[in-house]
């Protein structure tokens, strides 16, 4: 009971000096306070993520997954590697959902070497297939941060702007001085972030600090998922990147039928290798420059290199640029309206209620998070528009 005024204080008093707040409960566990800290960090992100910031939308992200011996540890069920790969599948789907014109590539590191799992590509299918297959791979040896970062930085240095490392081991076996490599990465303006699975490792701290990335260590599987999802949002553009015009094609979907006089069956340029795919089809998307055919968008034309997208793909990323305004927070005691959340219709029982400044409807804490993280538009505002 007397914890309540303390909690209210913490809420209003800002987020510094979190170590003062760590208190043990009767059994000596810190779990409740840690959960609290996490929850507050989540709310802080909602406040901070505010609009009118230039973002890097056409992202090129490389994910480096540690496959060393420490990934066989069973603190994540069934073992760290399986759990990581499963979460990666989810991450890849979300990533392409939120950033349709971006690309991802995956690298694994074990036995002091780095191996490429998939190339940088904009199609999620290949990545998902490779991740599913990788569950059977063995975890052996030590990882090598240097080799995996070097693999990424070397060939296509100018394109890659982000690297995410999932690092479980506490050591790394490098053939050369990693601080030199950090300097190179800085020169190439590559941002490296790390998600640690064991503990904080100094070299990762320095790596992320120097390149401007973030470093977090997971507590458990749900926290791992949350940290991964943080990287789905496009990051703010670095100060030196200039705006450039990018050429894109917007092909129309053509549907033809056999009765058309000039029906031309054709192969999609991506289906030439596979034998199982449908093969000859009548319709599809034709590249406006070279007339090559594709069945899905977005895609980079294999023949002429033009990026082919549809307008909704670009529009889908708009909510990053024009995010929903944060709702006004008022303590429950001060709120004098109906005690029901607008969206879930549940009784308002939390400490605070959230009010949309535009339509004046109230929401509970969970709905507020859902609206800001997933929906990106206020249900109250949408309703009022319709009935006007």
């Amino acid at each position, binding site marked *: 009971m007397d914890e309540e005024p303390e909690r209210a204080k913490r809420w209003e008093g800002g987020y510094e000096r979190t170590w003062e707040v760590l208190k043990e409960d009767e059994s000596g566990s810190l779990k409740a306070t840690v959960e609290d800290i996490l929850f507050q960090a989540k709310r802080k992100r909602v406040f901070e993520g505010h609009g009118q910031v230039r973002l890097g939308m056409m992202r090129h992200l490389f994910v480096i997954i540690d496959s060393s011996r420490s990934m066989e540890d069973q603190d994540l069920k069934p073992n760290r590697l399986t759990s990581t790969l499963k979460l990666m599948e989810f991450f890849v789907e979300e990533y392409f959902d939120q950033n349709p014109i971006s690309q991802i590539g995956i690298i694994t590191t074990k036995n*002091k070497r780095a191996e490429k799992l998939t190339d940088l590509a904009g199609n999620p299918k290949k990545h998902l297939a490779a991740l599913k297959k990788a569950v059977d791979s063995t975890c052996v040896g030590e990882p090598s941060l240097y080799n995996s970062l070097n693999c990424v930085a070397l*060939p296509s240095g100018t394109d890659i702007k982000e690297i995410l490392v999932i690092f479980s081991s506490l050591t790394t076996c490098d*053939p050369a001085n990693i601080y030199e490599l950090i300097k190179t990465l800085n020169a190439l303006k590559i941002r490296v972030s790390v998600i640690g699975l064991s503990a904080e490792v100094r070299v990762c701290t320095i790596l992320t600090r120097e390149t401007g990335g973030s470093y977090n260590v997971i507590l458990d599987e749900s926290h791992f998922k949350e940290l991964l999802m943080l990287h789905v949002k496009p990051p703010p553009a670095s100060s030196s990147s200039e705006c450039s015009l990018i050429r894109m094609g917007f092909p129309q979907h053509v549907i033809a039928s056999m009765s058309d006089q000039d029906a031309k069956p054709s192969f999609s340029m991506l289906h030439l*290798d596979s034998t199982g795919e449908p093969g*000859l089809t009548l319709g599809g998307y034709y590249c406006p420059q070279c007339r090559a055919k594709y069945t899905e968008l977005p895609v980079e034309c294999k023949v002429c290199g033009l990026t082919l997208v549809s307008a909704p793909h670009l529009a889908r990323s708009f909510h990053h640029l024009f995010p929903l305004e944060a709702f006004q927070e008022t303590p429950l005691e001060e709120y004098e309206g109906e005690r029901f959340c607008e969206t879930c219709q549940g009784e308002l029982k939390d400490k605070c209620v959230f009010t949309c400044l535009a339509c004046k409807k109230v929401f509970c804490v969970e709905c507020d998070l859902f609206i800001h993280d997933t929906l990106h538009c206020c249900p109250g505002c949408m309703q009022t528009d319709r009935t006007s």
Partner: protein
Amino acid sequence: SLLTVCVMHISSGAPAASDSTILPFLSVAMASLSEEVLLVVKRVRQRKQDGTLYLMAERLAWGPEGKDRFTVSHLYADIRCQKISPDGKAKIQLQLVLHTGESTTFHFANESTALKDRDVAKELLQQLLPKFKKKANKELEEKNRMLQEDPVLFQLYKDLVVSQVISAEEFWANRLSLNSVEHSLSNNNKQEVGISAAFLADIRPQTDGCNGLRYNLTTDIIESIFRTYPTVKQKYAENVPHNMTEKEFWTRFFQSHYFHRDRINTGLQDIFSECAKEDEKGLKSMVTQGVKNPMVDLLSLEDKTLDEGYGTATVPTTSNSSNKSLRENSNSAIIKRFNHHSAMVLAAGLLFFFYVQQERHQILTSLFVAFQVKLQEAIEYDDLQGDSGRKTISLNLKKSDRYSHGPIPLQSQHYSTSQDIINSISIIQHEMRSYKPRLTQVMSSSAASSAITALSPGGVLMQGGGQQTINQLVPTDVQSELKHLYTAAGELLRHFWSCFPISTPFLEEKVVKMKSNLEKFQVMKLRPFQEKIQRQYLSTNLTGHLEEMLQAAYNKFQAWQTRRMMRKT
């Protein structure tokens, strides 16, 4: 003298053969370049003729006495291995065995220095041969491997190169550069690998049941041992395969006292006793060099104890070795060994780091910076500081409401705004609310049912699902041949489109060449296919799309040509 290193111009009449096919072959190229000569040995006989042996940067050559041309010349890359005549034989010889199976024998005939000559030559070859072994065949192997692994690529090669649409060089030109980037990631040989600090512990001996131990050595571990202990590498090179097999070498290694803890120099005729001495020397030199970092005080790390649990006090160190107990001696031996091991592991990894930083003032400035950083770290603690936050650039959009509605189309289209749609929905809702059925003015039932049939799946107006039938109409072999044509055409078109925008004369030439390649492809591959399917009475236009793609390329070429001519006039 034997070890002259000079630069000499070599010329010869033999023409250089070029690599035009993917079949492996022997290169008999003698380029007229200046190559660095590493070793000259006089009085070397070959086929009963006196002459001089030259070891150069990339090849080995022999010329008869008095003439300045070489009769024998082999690239190191072509030499598979070398053999020497056993000690004790009257004739001191060195034989080179080439990849083709041929062998050349050199007889060192200088009475006084023959053995020395031969050994010097042999050692130099020993160092040079491994460097070149991989290079020459690597490209051919790579090409072969790529063709074997990827049947699509092989088919493409057959379609394009074998039928002479494009030349082999063009085919490989883009391919190799693409794939070498990818292969540098997957080809483990190219990755430099660090040395794990625990590599000796990883060997993990297992008991094999009869009082013996099995050691499992992988190539990684062997490489780590060689890099950390270069003397062992030297011993290996000297003894294997002449004096003992690899297995024997490693057995002796693990048996020797060198490897085991109690490294007491028993003075045995162990091949590894030298290694121990070298290590001692190395350790002593490291100690005398000391540490250049003023922030590190190694002397404060001594063991000082009063008694168990009673803290520390400075005890006068007894540097007199006779006072030390036996236990202290073996303890210090282990500690010395660990220190040496760590020092060697670090040194092996950071070798070139030291070479780079050899300028004295560079060392001083870097130390100064390190000093400042260390002080900074000692007085400040990052976690205590507030989050400085990342500097973000603000978005500067003019007319941001354009993003909510989409662009205005250039053609005059009837464009309904969202407001129009909302209005029309509310009008329909209103009409629905006040709907009264007027049964005298409806359609006849036959008209209604025919409309429904037409709009059901499979009906006249719902022909979108036509792809099923296409796949069944066209036989599979025709389809697969068409797929090959698509792959080949795609490849050619990709080369074509990659030339734009044309900025250099090289690209101009390339684009003209690619256009003619496309025309060749159309004539040589596409037309015969079209005729074939016409003979099979297939009515569908299977090559229409390919022709469309080729036409788009021709149009682009046309446009570029006209623009170029307009610029010139």
